[in-house]
């Protein structure tokens, strides 16, 4: 009797272990989707791109009316001018991307096997500048932000389509995932504490958005014209818990962006957007 039970117990453990070993990005995403559907059943699947707005109909109405004549149109137009200005050799940014840059942003970040690292959309912009003998833009600069806010708007409506294929890609994904779940800072939070465990709850008067949908709409303009890239937001969420923010385009942040964007797969891109 005892022995039978022990065997069953051990078999259970082994089964658990083998499921663990097979769990990969697709299983992670499904598990999170299921979790959020239970925790926040009021969010319709396509509405995850609205973040906390999807939980607050009044705020969403306000957002919708702001987005009719967004306060940042001039900024995006400045981005268009950068995008359309020919390089010294006469070529254009559009020449660096298939389809002239339309419906490409949803494929980023991807894992660059030759370079052995994650390549973000900003990396592709700088690679384009370099290939055309132009000075690269500083990561985190307003110039880069304005340019990507226009360039990514050319992919509006494209479904996020990040791939994790091959051992290098998987390792980068796993590092991003580890970063997401690790506690840090004097206040001892992980990203997951706020955006998974307590998604939908209020921290003081701010409602915490779920992480699915977090990566489909960057850059965003806050309070009208204050430009925020996804990695600016990483830095802010790090500072909030009194952790030292990392550098823009650091390997850690790029892996984090890779993991986070994979979790938004299938959602429509929308760039740029307003946030308060």
């Amino acid at each position, binding site marked *: 009797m005892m022995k039978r039970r022990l065997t069953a117990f051990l078999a259970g453990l082994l089964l658990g272990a083998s499921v663990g070993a097979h769990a990969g990005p697709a299983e992670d995403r499904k598990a999170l989707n299921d979790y959020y559907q239970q925790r926040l059943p009021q969010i319709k699947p396509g509405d995850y791109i609205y973040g906390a707005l999807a939980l607050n109909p009044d705020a969403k109405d306000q957002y919708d009316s702001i987005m009719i004549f967004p306060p940042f149109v001039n900024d995006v137009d400045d981005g268009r001018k950068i995008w359309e200005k020919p390089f010294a050799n006469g070529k254009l940014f559009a020449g660096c991307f298939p389809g002239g840059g339309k419906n490409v942003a949803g494929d980023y970040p991807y894992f660059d096997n030759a370079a052995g690292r994650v390549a973000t959309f900003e990396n592709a912009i700088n690679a384009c500048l370099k290939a055309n003998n132009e000075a690269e833009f500083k990561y985190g600069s307003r110039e880069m932000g304005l340019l990507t806010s226009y360039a990514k708007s050319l992919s509006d409506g494209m479904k996020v389509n990040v791939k994790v294929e091959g051992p290098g890609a998987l390792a980068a994904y796993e590092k991003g995932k580890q970063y997401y779940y690790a506690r840090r800072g*004097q206040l001892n939070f992980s990203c997951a504490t706020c955006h998974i*465990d*307590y998604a939908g*709850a*209020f*921290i*003081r008067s701010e409602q915490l958005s779920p992480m699915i949908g977090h990566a489909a709409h960057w850059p965003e303009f806050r309070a009208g014209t204050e430009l925020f890239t996804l990695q600016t937001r990483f830095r802010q969420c790090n500072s909030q818990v009194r952790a030292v923010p990392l550098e823009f385009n650091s390997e850690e942040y790029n892996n984090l962006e890779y993991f986070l964007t994979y979790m938004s797969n299938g959602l429509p891109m929308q760039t740029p957007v307003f946030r308060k």
Partner: protein
Amino acid sequence: MRKMPGLLFGLLVGAASLAVAAEEGKEPAGRALAFDKAKGNCLACHAIPNDPKAESPGTIGPPLIMMKERFPDRAKLRAQVWDATMANPRTAMPPFGRHQILTEQEIDQIVDYVLSL
């Protein structure tokens, strides 16, 4: 049944001591620390229903109410504030003592205030 009078009494004493503090124009030190965003910031996560000044609280943790009843052992309450991960390793509550977010004295003052609620 036997518990009710004690509970009500606790509430009344709590309310009275807050009222006295308010009348004298000096806040209990622990309250200021509990409200201060750079210090305890307890309001970020906890409602404090018995303190009329505790506005727009968060909803991450349970309301801080009837604390003397629920924490007859002061040391246990202090331990929760000092390092909430001892009781729940997955907690969202910051380890105020272990990570030196608050000094030992500040924690004592906050515990005094919380016990008055």
